[in-house]
């Protein structure tokens, strides 16, 4: 345990190593640490900003959805209204058409009836004439008595 030149050697080594560390070890490490610190701070700030933006976007989306819902219900009511309108229109149209068809049918029927009556009248006239001809074969002159027959026909 003598004090000797080891003391001087250790002192020199001490200064050398402190100098080495000051020159080659400390600055790059501290620079790296500071840089990482800055990066982390930036990242945190960005994250906060992102979160804020997300909140805003969520609010905006909610608003949009509300608006869309409102529009949708409006559209639905309009569509329902329009649908009932269309149904009503269709009913109306159908009724009119039915009436039209009924009318034409009735007119046709009347025509047919008139035509049949006419036909029948003519046939009856000719049959009557034919019958009268046979009854009165000999003594009745067709041309002399046709005015009587015509008079008969008109009375049928």
């Amino acid at each position, binding site marked *: 345990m003598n004090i*000797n030149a080891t003391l001087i050697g250790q002192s020199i080594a001490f200064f050398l190593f402190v100098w080495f560390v000051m020159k080659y070890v400390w600055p790059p490490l501290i620079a*790296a640490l500071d840089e*990482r610190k800055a990066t982390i701070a930036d990242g945190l700030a960005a994250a906060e900003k992102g979160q804020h933006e997300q909140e805003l976007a969520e609010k905006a989306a909610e608003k949009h959805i509300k608006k869309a819902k409102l529009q949708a219900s409006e559209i639905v009511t309009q569509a329902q209204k329009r649908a009932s309108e269309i149904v009503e229109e269709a009913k109306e149209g159908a009724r009119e058409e039915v009436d039209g068809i009924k009318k034409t049918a009735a007119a046709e029927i009347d025509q047919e009836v008139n035509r049949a009556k006419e036909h029948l009248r003519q046939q009856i006239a000719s049959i009557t004439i034919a019958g009268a001809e046979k009854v009165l074969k000999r003594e009745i002159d067709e041309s002399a008595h046709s005015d009587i027959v015509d008079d008969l026909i008109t009375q049928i």
Partner: protein
Amino acid sequence: MSGDGITSGDYIKHHLQNMTYGQHPDGSWGFAQSPEAAKEMGFWAFHVDSLGWSLALAAVFFFIFRKVAKNPTTGVPGGLQNFVEMMVEFVNSSVRGSFSGRNDIVAPLALTVFAWVFLMNFMDLIPVDWLPMIAQQIGAAFGADPHHVYFKVVPSTDPNITFGMALGVFWLMLYYSIKIKGLGGFLGELAFQPFGKVGTPVNLVLEGVSLISKPVSLALRLFGNMYAGETIFILIALMYGGGLAIGAFGGLLQLGWAIFHILIITLQAFIFMTLTIVYLDMAHTDH
């Protein structure tokens, strides 16, 4: 472990003797063969073991930290970089807490002191006989008498080492005191405090003692703690020569003391670093 024909006293003395290289009284240079021979070498001798281990450990520290510092990633750090950054952050926060001035040397100085003292203290946890025995084998291979190969592996149990570092800190204190306050300011602090100009002689004695006591207490605290710890390890190691039961008990004791010592070596390194920072802070501020 206390081999054939060696008494416990010899064993302890052998363990507490440094390997000394210097000039013999007859003028030739060489290793001291006994504690007495080492003493006769006077001041101009070197403790090859403590100085060697001290330099080797400093080199270990420096290369580990330099390896990381060479290209530190600012992204996700790997294991080694994580460890190094943890140390740097720890030292940096200590410096920020205790040092109020602005000086780029203080933080690297604190890191060096902390890591170096810790590593030197750490050698205390290696069982006391391992490295000396290897050294004796190597010495014997070179033709030396193994019993006269001394080898002390814990540099911080050598007052030369602790005083060497404390004096380094002391020179820095003086340098920055004078640089910051000027020679007049520094001397004025010594002469005119705390009793004013009337009490200059008393002031000089008081302040002089308090100035000198700083490096002395710094060095002696570390040395005393580590020396005591090592001596206890040596005493425990003696028990291995006392039969199976005592040896087993010694093993238990060594384990316990080593675990406790983990705290001591870290604490001593931390104290050395903190006091270094505080002393340099005092050098930078008027008080």
